[in-house]
């Protein structure tokens, strides 16, 4: 982010962050089994950094809790994300970051489906297809410079 490079969307709308999940008594009880729920998945990904702005995907409203669905019993997760503008060239990278974060944070048994919220991006199908293709995701992560950018998005912000 330097020199005279102009961002595609320099002044996006900002949304409020949701409050931290409240700790319940049952979560502290050894004997209760806590199932993985939508909020837990949302918490995993909401703090991913945007590749361009020093903001999280939640603050840009790219991710919303209502678009995160999990079924613990059937081991499936589905996440829909909304690019800030229909021509956002970062859509694939954002999707990849979400996918990688979930791959790293969820048990093997889950089938992870990351896609663009229908009707919010010009090349929606192409991006969805890339994200759904296991081999292409794996190949992308072999690319060290791409992995670097993804890691950048996933690193906790240091102030």
């Amino acid at each position, binding site marked *: 982010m330097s020199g005279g490079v102009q961002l595609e969307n320099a002044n996006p709308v900002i949304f409020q962050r949701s409050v931290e999940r409240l700790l319940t008594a049952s979560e502290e009880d050894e004997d209760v089994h806590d199932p993985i729920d939508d909020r837990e998945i949302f918490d995993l990904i909401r703090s991913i950094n945007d590749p361009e702005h020093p903001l999280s995907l939640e603050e840009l409203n790219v991710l919303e809790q209502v678009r995160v669905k999990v079924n613990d019993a059937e081991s499936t997760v589905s996440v829909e994300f909304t690019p800030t503008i229909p021509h956002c060239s970062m859509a694939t990278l954002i999707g990849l970051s979400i996918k990688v974060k979930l791959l790293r944070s969820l048990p093997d048994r889950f089938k992870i489906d990351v896609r663009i919220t229908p009707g919010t991006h010009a090349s929606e199908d192409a991006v969805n297809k890339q994200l759904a293709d296991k081999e292409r995701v794996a190949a992308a992560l072999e690319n060290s410079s791409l*992995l670097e950018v993804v*890691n950048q998005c996933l690193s*906790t912000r240091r102030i």
Partner: protein
Amino acid sequence: MAAVSPLLLSLVEEFVSGLQDSKAKEAAKGVKDGQFTMLQLVEALGVSLTSSQPHTRARGVQLLSEVLQENYAELTEREVEVLTAFYENRLKDHYVVTPSVLRGLQELTKCTTLPPGSAVSMLRSVFQDVHVQSLMLAERACIYNMLINLMETREAELKGLGADFVFGFVQSMDGERDPRNLLLAFQIAKNIVLQGYNLGKFTEELFEVTSCYYPIDFTPPPNDPHGITKEELILGLRAVLTGTPKFAEFLLPLLIEKLDSDVQSAKLDSLQTLAACMSQYESKDLAEFLEGLWASLRREVFQTSSEKMESAALAALAALTSCLSRSVLSSDSEDTLSTFLDLILRDCKHHLSEPDLKLVWPSAKLLQASCSASNRASYVITAAIMPSLIKQFNSRTQCSHRRTLLEVVQRFIQSVNTSQSSDIDESVFSEYRAALCSMVFSALSESNSSLQITAASVLNSLAQQTGLLLDSDIQLAVDHLTRLLLAEEDERVSSAVVDCAGALAEQHPAAFITKLIPRLKEELFSDTESFELRYHPAVHRRCLAALAAVSIQPSVVQESSPVLLDVLSSAHSDEGPSGPCSPLTKEEVLSAMVPVISTACSRLQPTLAGQTVLRVVSLFLDGDVSFLPDNAFPSHIQLLKQQQGMKASWSQSQLVCLLMACVCSLPRNVEVPQMERLLSQLEELSCSCSHLLSYSSAAKCFAGLINKRPQGESLDSSIQRTMQRVCSELDCPSSPVRTQVFTLMIWVAKALLLRYHPLFSILTDKLFSLLGDPDLGPMAAASFSLLMSDTEDILNRRCHANMRIMYRQRFFSENSAKLVQGFNAAPQEKKPNYLKALSNIITKLPKQVQVSELPALLSLLLEALTCPDQGVQLSTLSCLEPVLLNPPPVLIQQLEALISRLLALVCSPAMKIRITSIRCIHALSQFPVHEVLPFRARVLRALAQPLDDRKRLVRREAVQARGEWFLLGSPVGR
């Protein structure tokens, strides 16, 4: 002239031809002791100095220089003059001679007797005859040191050289590469610039020769013995570059260029350099670069990559604005400040009308930074933006928009706070007072809680502006606050309101005395008819919290404390469900009274303290109740005696905590009457009573008195008497009062530990032996935490306790070996107690001691991790966790053992152990990368399992730890 002594001749001979370096020292010592003079030395050197062999000449000069090094202070002006002429001449000699010549000259520059003119001629010769950069490192340093010495003592003469001096220096340092020499060269350049040497036409040359190092990129070699840091070089160079406005035309373009680069460290350095040079510059130096600087600064804030960069850019902008504000305007020049502020407003103002977009905050921050720079700037900026902010606030309907606007306004108020000097009475915001107040009050009347909270803190900021708010505003504000206090249920709002009330009351106590306190009083004592309807414990609590918060000024306290006392006495008379019930029988009430009494007693004047303690002791010992007004006590009440057979006897005996609060916090010079009798009754109570608060307070009171008692026979004998009783009870396993006796022992031990009393060691031995006790073992282990930490109610500095510094370290160093020994000797089932004791001690130790002592204990801790007992595992993990955040080297050597033990625990059946072990593994990811990288794959595999843990808290830790380990080895990770 005396003949040259043969000793000297032989010394010279051995040094020059025999190449024995040690002889130089002897010659120097000889000169120093007056055995021979400088002149004799030169005469003795005669042959070597005129030899046809350059190496012999070099040796000769070397001897002379080394002798000078020891003796330069004693030289006469005449000697210095001759020597200087000689050395200047020798500069033309063979190159092997030059190093020694330079060393000699360097010594001569230190002479206070250097004759006038020598400095100049010396430098002329050096600049003329020596090509500095083809010399070796040490010789170059010699020349820099010469310059530094001469600049210190012969400033006027050097300035006489004019621009030639600067030119000579520029030529000398051109191409310097060694960081040690660069530090010296930067120092010279800084002196040239700051002390006003004539730069002549060489300004640009001097700038070029130094700025070519900018920005400094230097990584010291590992194990660098010189200890030069990048930071030192940066600051050295920055001092040169920012030292004079003459560099402005060269420096500013350079900074703009570096700001536009991609290298983060260069950007940051440029911002800091920019801020630094503003203290020297004037507006005419800046005028032509303002556009460029603004564009770069704006970009750094609008598209910031880190908070650090952003705050550096804002600081630079503030410095720039204040520099422009400082300049005196002349009639024909344009007003650069207003030109610049126009630029800022042009680019930022319109973003403030889009409160939900990202750029609102960066724009606001930029405006605020320039606003905070000077009074003039703050007038210009506020005049330009406040009307529009106020208008928007009144026209917007969405709460989130209004809140953002309010927050922006608040930041402006705060930024002006920092800039305004105290001699300006009129606040910048006076013009907008009415509008701002109506904004705040309308926000306080909204139902949206976050809007209310923001409004409360804006109100707070407004109140900090001296003389801004009128009395009528304050009255209205108090009305709003009171209303919210009584009606608002949201806890966050009411705590914000209480904070705001506290801050306002500090500035404007009158309104709170006349309005808030009477209203709260009314609420607290609302008539009992409608008691059931109106009584809300939450409202009550908020009222009390507000009363406490506003009671900062003495005038308010005078009004509020009667109300609080009334609350107390009304609580006293309230009828409980089972007959009359005093709040003084409630433990929490008593515990709350302890700090009040203790604080009051610790500050009493000596005579008053003496009276108080006399009364209190006679009340508790003799039942003298005469000084308590309106009491209903029977006369001769025996507060410290257990009434046998009475069920509620503890309701009286627990009052001993009040005795403790009083007598244990008095200054040490106040004598407590009837000490022996008091101690024995306290001992009796603490050893016989079965009520926890009673016996523990009695034990604490006993300990507090022991701690302050003067050293001597009577102290020792009372300690020993108590010890005997304690030990005999503890040695009898069937005794019913072992817990009580143990409590007494621990408190006495604490009291003695603090004052380094020699009898303390007996108590520690007893304590260690109890770690193996089947009943008291766990309690004994836990008690180490009490010994090592500061206590709140007694035995602390506030209570004037007899405390020596570093008692923790002392305890640790005296007892850690015993503990380790005890651990090794103990049977398996007893080991946990020892480990718990150890971890209790270690966690309380200061960091430095922890790090130095850990090596000895590490193997013990590692063994403890494999111990099957869950309690041991947990306490060891919690002992390790803080250490891992700042790991000592010895830990890194044991990484393999540590990691495999930790990984084994992530699937432990106990949730807490899983969580803490994963946290430890998380901490390991911050170790030096090359040390932990080999374990990456193994750790990632092991952490896959807790990702599917049945407990969410465990999963959360595992996700964080695994995420960090994934990033390991990639540059962004660290």
